[in-house]
């Protein structure tokens, strides 16, 4: 079954912050083979060639305040763009067994940005710039996920929304090991501190994948959205029979109406049977 992919991204400064350190990216990676003229019959050529490619979706939330944070998230996003350029055409060769190479390259891209940020800011005073990164490389139906920090990815399937990522924060870690309750984590100030970030003191990228089904929707967002929009509202919006743009704008509007206390970036991806 073929599917069409409808996607849209949007970012907003919010109502409190003086600048926008969030960024997003949507890339259509395409390499096509088109038979111009041949002595072979149409039947012989049918389904032999066609476009092969994928999509890259990402959000990044810069940390560090002002231009430094902006540069950090921009750096992560532009590195991904470089990755996408390099991998155009490689999808022909990615067998199930070679998927691990794909993951390694994605991880290397993330680590490359991390090391560059560290080197650029060595010896400087103040908070070092860092960034979260949540990205999906979609080669239908497989969605490869790489995640660092507390931005999030969700999938909506059969009316149910599930979070694909786990926040890499100090609070989440303390809850996981049983040292804090959820309630304690919600009150503790250091709970929001990132336990893993590109450019931070720790970097532990999480990788995974999920096979999507026609009709599934995916959303990537920074914490500026999830601070004000809960999972049930996300499920409701992603369940609307609307375009990705309408959904993304609705979610952004909800976050702003909820206070808009942080920068917001959101990417919505809809798959539809053709």
């Amino acid at each position, binding site marked *: 079954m073929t599917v069409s992919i409808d996607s849209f991204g949007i970012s907003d400064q919010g109502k409190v912050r003086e600048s926008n350190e969030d960024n997003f990216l949507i890339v259509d990676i395409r390499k096509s083979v088109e038979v111009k003229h041949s002595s072979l019959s149409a039947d012989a050529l049918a389904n032999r060639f066609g476009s092969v490619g994928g999509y890259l979706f990402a959000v990044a939330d810069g940390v560090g305040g002002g231009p430094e944070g902006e540069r950090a998230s921009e750096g992560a996003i532009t590195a991904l763009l470089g990755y996408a350029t390099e991998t155009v055409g490689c999808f022909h060769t990615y067998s*199930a067994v070679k998927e691990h190479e794909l*993951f390694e390259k994605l991880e290397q891209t993330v680590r490359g940005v991390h090391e560059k940020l560290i080197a650029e800011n060595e010896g400087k005073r103040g908070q070092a710039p860092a960034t979260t990164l949540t990205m999906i490389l979609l080669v239908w139906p497989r*969605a490869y*996920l790489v995640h660092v920090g507390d931005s999030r990815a969700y999938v909506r399937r059969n009316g149910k929304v599930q979070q694909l990522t786990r926040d890499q924060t100090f609070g989440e870690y303390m809850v996981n090991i049983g040292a804090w309750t959820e309630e304690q984590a919600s009150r503790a100030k250091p709970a929001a501190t990132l336990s893993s970030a590109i450019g931070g003191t720790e970097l532990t990228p999480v*990788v*995974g994948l999920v096979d999507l089904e026609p009709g599934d929707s995916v959303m990537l967002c920074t914490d500026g959205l999830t601070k004000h929009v809960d999972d049930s509202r996300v499920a409701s919006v992603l369940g609307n029979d609307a375009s990705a743009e309408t959904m993304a704008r609705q979610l952004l509007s909800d976050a702003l109406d909820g206070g808009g206390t942080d920068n917001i970036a959101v990417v919505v991806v809809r798959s539809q049977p053709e």
Partner: protein
Amino acid sequence: MIQKKICMVGVHGTGKTCLVQQFVHSIFSVKYLSTVGVKIDRKEVRAGDTDVTLMLWDLEGRDGTRDISASYLRGAHGVILVADGTRVDTVDQLVDLRRIVDDAVGPVPSIVALNKIDLTDEWKLSQAEEAAAGGKDVHRVRTSAKTGEGVESAFQWLAEATLVAKAEES
């Protein structure tokens, strides 16, 4: 370095993710979060004279509405079938899960992990039931993702078994 894809397979809530977390990061998470799709970790081990990178594919659990996806199993060199010794139904499904694995990837080395042995008061399996878990000709190990008991040895056994299988192939 040799890479081996190892899949964690079982009913939801049997502790597949916790076993991987214990093996790779030496931590135990008390908060249950169901896996969506596959989470991938890796760890290097020494098997005999060979360094092996285990690519650990932690598959979302079977939950009554969704079965184990054959596409996730494709290319696997070994499988850990995980059951929860406090839930007999998770043990009963091991034979069927083995069949799904066999259909998807053929006869690859596999091991049954009877997990949660730290929950001694809630343990439901007799010795005979443990010995029969998963059917004939399968290696079994009792594990606790919480205490770490049996975890290292389960992964180590499987790493070595995948090398033996490869040597027999060639």
